[in-house]
């Protein structure tokens, strides 16, 4: 039996085989979606760029060349994306910027997912006034446009990339809480939860041991779908000077830096913009494909 046959078997022998087979089928469906594969490659390229930035980048991202000779040079073989007003190589800065972008996305996901998951499952499982209060809070957070609330948070916390990450995370969790709650409501009254309850499992145990793991996958998918939005929000904060501070090579801040010369030296602002665009397009394409695969209703 080949591995493929083992994976696609209609009669899985173990839970592990069934689960592996399920993931394999999802993968096959995803693989047949050309746009999603383009997205996946872009995301992988981003990760590779972030890991190998010092190796790929031909110049130092922070220290520029000769200010008299190398400032604001147009793209050439020497400087693939040209240089900025401090004679720094934009290509090198964009490569290193991938690290910042990836860090923002990863940290926001790591902070916002548990918040949303905890609030959502707790509200859904306990119900009653706990549910009312938690969902009211969620709705209130949803009542602010995300970027605006993030702006308000950053204005209180002070600019900087850490604060930007906290602000974005604080404004990202409400949709996850909604989703986790909806999932919990469908799980809550199922027989195996009742069985666990009858065996004397505590509420906390049921919540953490049974309900949360089941909600996890759909919340994670949702977070993946949101990643492009996170990148754009972070770039927006950077552009407004509230995210990463100079001289850090954050893409949004780089666009802001090049804004003054846009008419004469278009590449300074254009290149980092292309990077943001390509990466968030990659996440969007991947997310779109994932949604098609995982939500059969959306297929057509």
């Amino acid at each position, binding site marked *: 039996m080949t591995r493929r046959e083992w994976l696609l078997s209609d009669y899985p022998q173990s839970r592990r085989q069934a689960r592996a087979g399920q993931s394999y089928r999802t993968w096959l469906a995803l693989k047949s979606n050309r746009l999603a594969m383009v997205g996946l490659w872009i995301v992988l390229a981003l990760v590779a760029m972030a890991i190998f930035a010092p190796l790929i980048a031909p110049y130092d991202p922070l220290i520029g060349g000769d200010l008299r000779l190398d400032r604001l040079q147009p793209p050439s073989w020497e400087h693939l994306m040209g240089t900025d007003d401090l004679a720094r190589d934009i290509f090198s800065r964009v490569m290193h910027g991938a690290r910042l972008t990836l860090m923002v996305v990863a940290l926001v996901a790591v902070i916002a997912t548990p918040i949303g998951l905890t609030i959502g499952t707790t509200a859904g499982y306990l119900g009653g006034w706990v549910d009312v209060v938690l969902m009211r809070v969620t709705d*209130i957070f949803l009542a602010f446009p*995300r970027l*605006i609330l993030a702006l308000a948070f950053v*204005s*209180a916390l002070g600019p900087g990339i850490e604060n930007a990450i906290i602000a974005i995370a604080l404004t990202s969790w409400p949709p996850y809480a909604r989703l986790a709650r909806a999932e919990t409501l469908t799980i809550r009254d199922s027989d195996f939860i009742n069985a666990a309850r009858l065996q004397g499992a505590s509420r906390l145990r049921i919540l953490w041991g049974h309900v949360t793991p089941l909600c996890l996958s759909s919340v994670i998918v949702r977070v993946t779908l949101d990643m492009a939005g996170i990148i754009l929000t972070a770039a927006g904060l950077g552009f407004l000077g509230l995210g990463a501070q100079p001289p850090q090579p954050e893409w*949004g801040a780089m666009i802001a830096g090049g804004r003054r010369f846009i008419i004469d030296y278009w590449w300074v602002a*254009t290149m980092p913009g292309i990077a943001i*665009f390509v990466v968030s*397009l990659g996440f969007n394409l991947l997310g779109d494909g994932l949604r098609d695969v995982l939500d059969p209703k959306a297929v057509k």
Partner: protein
Amino acid sequence: MAEFAPKVGGRGSALSFWLWKAVKLVLTVAVTFLGLLLITFLISHVMSVDPVLRVVGDRASQSTYDAMYLQMGLDKPIWQQFWIYLQKVLSGDFGNSFLTKKPVMGDIARAFPATLELATVAILIGTLVGVPVGVWSAVKAGKAFDQIVRVLGLVGYSAPIFWLGLLGLLVFYANLQWVAGPGRIDIAYEYSFTSVTGLMLLDTAMQGEWAAFGNAFSHIILPASLLGYFSMAYISRMTRSFMLAELAQEYVTTARVKGVPEWRIIWVHALKNAAVPLVTVVALSYAGLLEGSVLTETVFAWPGLGLYLTNSLQVADMNAVLGGTLVIGAIFVGLNLLSDLLYSLLDPRVRRRVRK
């Protein structure tokens, strides 16, 4: 044969249904608004590193600092501070802006029409293009048209709006000179009409100042198209998925059996049904434009709420930032409410529903 009588509700029960709905709405809005206030309060009074330092600056003497500390009421218990904050905000007092030295409320009132005008033109573009495009890509699902629209939509979702704005200025203003540059109107036209509504397109048109109207139009068209493109991406995508669901319904088959022409099935039968949830989508993207306007206005030097907010942010002007945030949050809530009401007006199933 009583069961054959149509179940049309009487006038009285319909009225009480509306009353009940209104009370519930008012309560929800009140709680939400209180929550908005609580969040902005927490941001300004609790999360903020040192609100006093913000006001007096770090060179102030200890006595100035202490005086300001007392003046700001920071010695009082937190719930009392919130109560004071609440009273102030509800009476329309957001404090003075550190930047303009004027009351924040007045600043916001002056900036608001610019944002309103920009967002309205944008949503018009987004809806008038997005809905037909979405309908057509549902009809042609999977075909070339649908694929192209899908990719264009994803591009809309993925490009940073401030970057597109800069490129737009570079190409259409600096190079091609098709449109006017940043700002709402050229100085030459600024005093050729009186501001009545604050919406320049409306004011100039009403006063017959067509040259000024043309100038204002060439200023607004680029930022509005950009914002419109973003809402179009969302609106067309949602329209497509609603239409796909409707076109698969049995009543569509009924219409085909009746020999209703295909265009009528699509644009009347199915779209009328899809329009019900679409109203919510349009209202939400209108609200979403407020978000997009912050970055767009910054790029286009558009003197609206967004620019006011970012300018205040640059100098850490807390009163102005929170005032702006609160107003935008309130508009957001209002639009959500409006979409709810419109939903009930459009859907006969909700409109005439009698309480069980």
